C-alpha cells in the first residue's frame, strides 16, 4: 500500500497544517504503525515543492504532540504511544479544514455555521 499525502496550496489552510493533519490521520487510522520512519524533511519538501522550514514545522508540531520522535541516525519515527487521538485537537483540525474550504467558496461565518448545523441535523447513514 502506498502512503501518500496531498497538499492543496490554494486551499487557505497552511501547508504545514495539511501535512501535520494528514500524518496524524494516517497514524490514528493505523496506516502508519509505531516504528514507521517518516521520510527526511528534505525529501518530503522536495516532493511537495515546499520550503524545508514548512515541513520541518509540521514534524516539530508532530513531535511536540507526541505523535513522533526524532532519533539520531533514525530520523523521525512514529511513536509507540501514538494512536491515542485528542478529540478536541482532531475537532479543531477538522474545523480549520472546513473553514478553509468555506472561505474558498466565498461563504461568510453565518452561512458556514448554517451548513454545519444542517449537516448535524441530517440522519446518520446506517450500516451497509
Amino acid at each position, binding site marked *: 500500500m502506498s502512503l501518500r499525502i*496531498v497538499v492543496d496550496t490554494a486551499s487557505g489552510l497552511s501547508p504545514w497544517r495539511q501535512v501535520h493533519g494528514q500524518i496524524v490521520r494516517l497514524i490514528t487510522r493505523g496506516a502508519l504503525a509505531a*516504528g*514507521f*520512519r517518516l521520510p527526511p524533511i528534505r525529501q518530503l519538501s522536495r*516532493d511537495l515543492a515546499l520550503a524545508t522550514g514548512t515541513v520541518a514545522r509540521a514534524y516539530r508540531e508532530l513531535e511536540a504532540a507526541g505523535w513522533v520522535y526524532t532519533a539520531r541516525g533514525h530520523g523521525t519515527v512514529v511513536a509507540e504511544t501514538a494512536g491515542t487521538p485528542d478529540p478536541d485537537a482532531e475537532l479543531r483540525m477538522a474545523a480549520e479544514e472546513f473553514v478553509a474550504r468555506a472561505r474558498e467558496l466565498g461563504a461568510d461565518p453565518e452561512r458556514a455555521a448554517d451548513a454545519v448545523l444542517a449537516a448535524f441535523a441530517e440522519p446518520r447513514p446506517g450500516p451497509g
Partner: protein
Amino acid sequence: MSFADLLGLAAVMALFGLLLLALLWPGEPQGRRLLRTWGVAEPDPQEISTAVAYLKRRRLAYPWLYFLLSFLAQTVLGNDQDGAFLGLVLLTVLLGSLLAELLALRPARGRTREASLDTRRPTDLVPYWALALDGCVLLGAVVLATAGVAGVQWARGAPQDRTTAAAVTLLLVAVLSAVAVALMVLAAVRRPPDRRPRVDLALRVRSARVAIGLHVAVLTSAVGVYHSGVIGLIIGALGITAWVWITAPIRALPAPTRAV
C-alpha cells in the same frame, strides 16, 4: 583531418542518431512493455502514457548527442579509434539518460501536490550486488588507467606501445562516467513523484538500474578498447553481459523499507 571533415563525420553520426531515434521512437506497445518489464503488471492507459513520455525524453537528445560526442571523439582521439563506435553509442545513451533525469528534477508547480511517505534511497532502487559490481569495475578501470599513465609495463595495454594519452582517456572516461551515473541515480531517487505510485516506482527503478548497467558496459568497453586484442573483447563481452543481468526484468516492484 580538417575541421570540415570533422564536421562532416559528426553530421553523419547525427544522421545515424536520427535514424536510431526514428526506429526507437516509443509508442503504447513500448510503454506497456517497459512497465511490465519493471514490475507493473497490467498497466492502465495513463500509466502507459507516462512511460511513453519517459522514453521520449531520453531519446530526443540522441541525434545532437551523437553529433557532439563524435565530433569530440574525432578531435581528441584522432586516428586512435579502435572500438570508438561502440563507446560512442554507449556514451550517447548514458548522456541522453542523464539529461532526461536532470530535466525531470524540475519541481512540481501545480496547485495540488502529492508525496509518498516512503523514504527513498539508492539501495531501494538498485540491489547491493549491482552497486558492488559497478564499484569493482570502476576501481579496476581507475587502477589500470592510473598505472598506464604512470608507465607501468603491464598496464600499457595491447599493443604495448599504447600512448599515455590513451591511459589518460581511459581515466577520464572512468571518472566522468562515474560522476554522470552517480548524478543519474541521485536524480532517480530525488525527482518529484508521479501521481501514480506504481509507475513512479517502476520508472525510478528502471532509471537507476539502467544507469548502473550502462556504467558497467561503458567502463568495460573502454577497458576493452584500451587493452584491445582477445582480452579486450572478453572484457567488453563480460561488461555487456553484466549490463543485461543488472537490467533484467523484475517480477515485482521492490517493497519500501518502512520500519526503523
